[in-house]
């Protein structure tokens, strides 16, 4: 069975982002970029499924400009078999619906039985793409997965999901879409031998036109601004002082 994993290149999670002066977005030039942490978890899960003998091939796919290739190579270095790069002029116009349509086209041609994604990208925090592509494909979905178990006959997958009320367990018939949450696994580091091997693995390039997908968007980002600032706080020296402030200054008691 083939597993496909969609990954995204984002500003590294540890970076303190700066907003551009013209409010058009966040500063990304000269900023450390990495594979989205949730996508890394998705790749790791695909690799574990393959290592458990449930999958024969793991394909990593990403969309955007040339720099996507680095992110795909990271996936290959972790252990994926080959890559797919949907090359687009401008990553900023790739809203989730466009990505979902591209993924739908790739899935039709690659025919994986399982499509894995991270539950959300830490840049736009949308948490939409997996759900959208599942809808377009007519596949069942399991989002925010904290545990994934493919059945022995590879016909279904049992997923534990982190929801507001606790952990929900659902079972899906394959093919299906699963999005990874934080505690699904701890991704491996790419070892040096694997990084070297990755250089020889193939990354196929394809354009949206070749996939018969028109990239448009019904959304427009008008501006990106600073969040409301909290005023600076104070340090207190004791529990007594804290309680006094909370009662008499903040008036929360």
């Amino acid at each position, binding site marked *: 069975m083939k597993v496909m994993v969609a990954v995204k290149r984002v500003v590294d999670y540890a970076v303190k982002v700066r907003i551009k002066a013209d409010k058009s977005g966040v500063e990304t030039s000269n900023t450390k970029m990495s594979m989205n942490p949730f996508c890394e978890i998705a790749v790791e899960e695909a690799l574990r499924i393959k290592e458990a003998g449930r999958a024969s091939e793991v394909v990593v796919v990403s969309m955007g400009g040339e720099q996507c290739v680095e992110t795909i190579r990271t996936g290959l270095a972790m252990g994926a078999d080959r890559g797919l790069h949907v090359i687009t002029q401008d990553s900023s116009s790739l809203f989730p619906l466009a990505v979902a349509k591209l993924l739908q086209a790739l899935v039709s041609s690659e025919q994986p039985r399982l499509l894995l994604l991270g539950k959300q990208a830490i840049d736009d925090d949308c948490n939409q793409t997996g759900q959208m592509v599942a809808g377009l494909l007519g596949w069942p979905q399991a*989002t925010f997965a904290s545990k994934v178990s493919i059945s022995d006959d590879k016909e279904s997958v049992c997923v534990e999901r982190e929801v507001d009320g606790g952990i929900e367990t659902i079972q899906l018939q394959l093919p299906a879409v699963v999005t990874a949450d934080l505690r699904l696994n701890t991704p491996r580091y790419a070892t040096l031998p694997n990084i070297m091997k990755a250089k020889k693995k193939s990354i196929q390039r394809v354009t949206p036109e070749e996939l018969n997908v028109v990239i448009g968007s019904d959304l427009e980002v008008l501006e990106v*601004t600073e969040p409301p600032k909290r005023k600076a*706080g104070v340090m207190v020296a004791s*529990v007594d002082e804290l309680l006094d402030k909370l009662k008499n200054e903040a008036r*929360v008691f």
Partner: protein
Amino acid sequence: MASSWKWKWRPLSKLARNFASSALVVAEHGGGSVKNGSISAVAAAAAVLGDSSPVTLLLAGSGGSELDAAIQHASSAHPAVSQVLVARSPLLGQPLAEPWAELLVQAQKKGNYSHIFAASSSFGKDVLPRAAALLGVSPITDVTRTIDQHTYIRPIYAGNAMATVRFKGSGPCIVSIRATSFPAVPGLALTGVGHPSIVDFDASSLSSEAIGKSKWIGLASQQTERPELGAAKIVISGGRGLKSAENFELLEKLADKLGAAVGASRAAVDAGFVPNDMQIGQTGKIVAPELYIAVGISGAIQHLAGIKDSKVIVAINKDRDAPIFQVADYGLAMDLFEALPELVAKVPSKRL
């Protein structure tokens, strides 16, 4: 006899808006009442569309007394609700995305709403984008402010930036809202204001390629009498500094005295001290209580994302350099194992 007409002149824009706008609010219910987050979604819809646009609350389930009670509650949950639409089907007994998304598609085809709203709960996050894709539109999710009918503000980069997004498509404007940004004022429903009609929605023909391919097995949740994190006035949260699951009992004692909810940082959940549904942060729960007390939490960007809208933030951490102190209104650099027992002893009891 000539009939006499009384015309009330209305500004054309308002008339056009009345024609054009109508909202469907996809509600969640539990234990016989509509969930607070869904009432917040109604408040957001009403704020954006104005008083004279109809707001339909969609309630669904497999049927039974809990659903009936929720319908009763829905009828007086918010004055803006003009219709309660009820769908009953064995397919809707559990929060599975496939049948629920299809329900939304059918409800939209029938009602032709200009807007569809829902709370950005784990259910809303799961279902709304799937429904949006089926309807051919991009949703705008986790909105914290509404500007106009098609323009909304949402947090990005863990709330370190805010994006103003406009929907310019044709098709319904689909929006999920962050409940903490749209407080549902309890008791707002006044008697005599708006008796919504209760209408049955025929869900007997719910079918799609995906329905039937997912099966709900179960939900493991902790039973607690404490207030829900999203709605609690006071939240006390513990991090890795608590060092063990047992030590969380110290926090619980404080929470019990204050009538507070208990939350945790990702580190504490990862370490197995507490279950996942207590996690507060960028990918956990968002809270905005009157008072948030962070104990033994360093204050990673991802955690701060979940607490920024709290009215007052208190931090207790023995590390003076912990980033949490940059965001706290009051910071106490003290060993939490000394501070907590003292706090428990001295804090005023809020237990009713």
